[in-house]
C-alpha cells in the first residue's frame, strides 16, 4: 500500500463522510437536529435515573455500593450509544441507500468503493454518538448526580479500552452492513434485533450474572461486555459485582483486546463474504417497498 493510495482512500472516506452528513442532517435546522440526536439517549438515561430514584424512594438500593453500581450502569449505558449509532447505523445506511433512496447501486458503480464509503459514513455516526455520550454524561453529572471521583480515573487503561471498544464497534458495524446487503426486507428487523440484543447480552445496565448460564458465556465472548466493564473500572472507579470480580484489571484489558482482534478479523472476512453473496443473489438494487 503506497502513500498515494492511502491518501486516495482518506479523500474518498472524507467525501463519503460529507455525503453521510448531508443524508443524516439536511432535513432539519441544526437546533431541531440536535434535539433529534439527543432525545433518544437522554430519555433512556432519564428512565434509568427515574428507576433508580423510585427504588431508593422505597428503601431499596441504599448505600454506596448500590450507588457505585448504578453509576457503572449509567456510564455503560451512555457509551452504548456507539453501538446504537455506529454498529447498527452502518447497517441502516445500507438499508436506506437501497430501499429508501434507491442509490446503493450508484455507490457501487462509483470509484469510491463500498468499504471506504461505509468507513466514511461511520465518521459521521461516531461524531453523533460522541455528542450523545457527552450529553448523557453531562446530564448525569449535573442534573442527576451520577458522579465519580476523578482522582480514581485510570487514564491510560481507559484510553486503551476506549480505542479497542470503538474499533470493535466499527468492525462489527461492517459485519452488520454486509449482512444488510444480503438481507432484503428483513434487514430492518435484524438491525433492530442486534441493537436490542446487544443491550441485553453485554450487561449494559445489569451484571451478566443475572443472565441464564449459556447466554452468560455468549456475553463473555463479546468485546462490548469487556469494554463496558473496563469503563466502569477505569472511569467510574468500580467494576460490576459478581462474576466479573474474578478478573483483574489487566485480564479485563486482555480479554477486551483478544475479543476485539477476533471480531475484527471475523468481521472483515464476513463483510466481503456477504458482499459477494449479495452480488450473486442480485440484492444490491433489490427494493421490497418494505
Amino acid at each position: 500500500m503506497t502513500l498515494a493510495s492511502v491518501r486516495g482512500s482518506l479523500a474518498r472516506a472524507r467525501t463519503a463522510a460529507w455525503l453521510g452528513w448531508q443524508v443524516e442532517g439536511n432535513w432539519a435546522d441544526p437546533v431541531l437536529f440536535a434535539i433529534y440526536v439527543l432525545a433518544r439517549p437522554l430519555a433512556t438515561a432519564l428512565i434509568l435515573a427515574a428507576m433508580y430514584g423510585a427504588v431508593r424512594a422505597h428503601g431499596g438500593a441504599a448505600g454506596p455500593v448500590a450507588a457505585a453500581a448504578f453509576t457503572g450502569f449509567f456510564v455503560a449505558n451512555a457509551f452504548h450509544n456507539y453501538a446504537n449509532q455506529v454498529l447498527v447505523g452502518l447497517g441502516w445506511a445500507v438499508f436506506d441507500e437501497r430501499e429508501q433512496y434507491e442509490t446503493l447501486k450508484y455507490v457501487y458503480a462509483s470509484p469510491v468503493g463500498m468499504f471506504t464509503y461505509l468507513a466514511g459514513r461511520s465518521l459521521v455516526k461516531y461524531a453523533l454518538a460522541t455528542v450523545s455520550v457527552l450529553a448523557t454524561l453531562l446530564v448525569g453529572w449535573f442534573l442527576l448526580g451520577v458522579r465519580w471521583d476523578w482522582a480514581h480515573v485510570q487514564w491510560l487503561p481507559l484510553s486503551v479500552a476506549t480505542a479497542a471498544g470503538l474499533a470493535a464497534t466499527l468492525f462489527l458495524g461492517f459485519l452488520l452492513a454486509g449482512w444488510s446487503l444480503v438481507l432484503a426486507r428483513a434487514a430492518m428487523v435484524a438491525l433492530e434485533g442486534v441493537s436490542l440484543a446487544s443491550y441485553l447480552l453485554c450487561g449494559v445496565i445489569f451484571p451478566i450474572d443475572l443472565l441464564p448460564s449459556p447466554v452468560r458465556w455468549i456475553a463473555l465472548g463479546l468485546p462490548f461486555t469487556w469494554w463496558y466493564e473496563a469503563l466502569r473500572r477505569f472511569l467510574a472507579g468500580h467494576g460490576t459485582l459478581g462474576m466479573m470480580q474474578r478478573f483483574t484489571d489487566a485480564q479485563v484489558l486482555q480479554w477486551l483486546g483478544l475479543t476485539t482482534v477476533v471480531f475484527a478479523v471475523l468481521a472483515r472476512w464476513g463483510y466481503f463474504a456477504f458482499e459477494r453473496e449479495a452480488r450473486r443473489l442480485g440484492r444490491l438494487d433489490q427494493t421490497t417497498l418494505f
Partner: protein
Amino acid sequence: MSGSLAALAPIERRPRHTGARLFVQALLARSYVRLVGSLREPTWMISDAVFPNLGMCGFVLLYRALGAPRSYEALALIGGVLTTYWINVLWGMGAQLYFEKMQGQLQLYFAAPCSRLAILSGMALGGLVITVLRSLVGVAIGVWVFHIQVAPFSPWVLVGVFVLTMVALYALGMTLSSLFLLYGREAWHTANALQEPVYFLSGLYFPVRTLGALGAVAAGILPLTLGTDALRQVVLGPAAHGLLPLGKECLALAGFGALFLVLASRSMAYLEALAKREGRLTQRWQ
C-alpha cells in the same frame, strides 16, 4: 358502432353503499389489509412481538440488580407490554401515511370514495387486534421467564380500562398520521425521536409518580401516561403507587379519546387540503 358507444357512455358510477355502511365497509377492508399484511411477513412479527420486550427484560434485570421489591418488576412488565402498543401507534398509525407516500400509493387513499377517517379507523382496529396478540408474548415472558406474580384482580375492570386506553391511544395515532402527511423524512425522524422520550414521560418502567410535577404534566398530554398508571392500579393495587384515583383516570382517558377523534377528523381534512395545495401528496424521496 354508435350502439356500443352509447353502452359505454355512463362512466360515472355511484358507489354501492354510502354513509355509515360505506364507512364500516371501508373500516373493515382496511383492517383486513392491516391484519393480513402483518401476518404475511414473519420477521415483522418477531420485531413487533419480541423486540419491545427485550428492553423490558433489561429493565426488569436492572430492578433485580438494584434489589427493588418484586412489584417493581411487575410495573416494568406492564410498561413493557404497553410499549408494543405505542410502537404500533407511532409506526403503524402515525408514520403509515408517510410509508404509503414513499411507496407511491397514498394518492389511492385520496381517490377512494370513502371517508379518510374510516381508513384511519380501519388501520387502528387492525393494528390493535394484531398488537393484542403480540403483546401476549410480553405477558408470557413475565410469567414464565421472570416468574412475576400479581394478586387477583377483576378482569372486567382491566378490559374496561384497557379499551379506554386503546381508544385514546389510537385516536392520538390517527391525529399523528394526518400531521405526518405533510412531511417526508421528518416523519420518519419524528417517529424515531418520539419513541424513548414518550417511554420516559409515560413512566413505562417506573411509577409515574416518580416524575413528580412532570408526571402530572405528561398525564395531561399523553394518554399513554394515564393508561399505564390506570392499568397498573387495576393489576397491582396500592403497589402501583398510582398518580390519580382510578375513576378520575378513566374519565380523563375517555375525554382524551373523544378529543383526539375530533382532532383527527379536523386535522386530516385541513392537512389533506394543505398537502394538495403544496403538492406534497405524491412527493417521494424528499
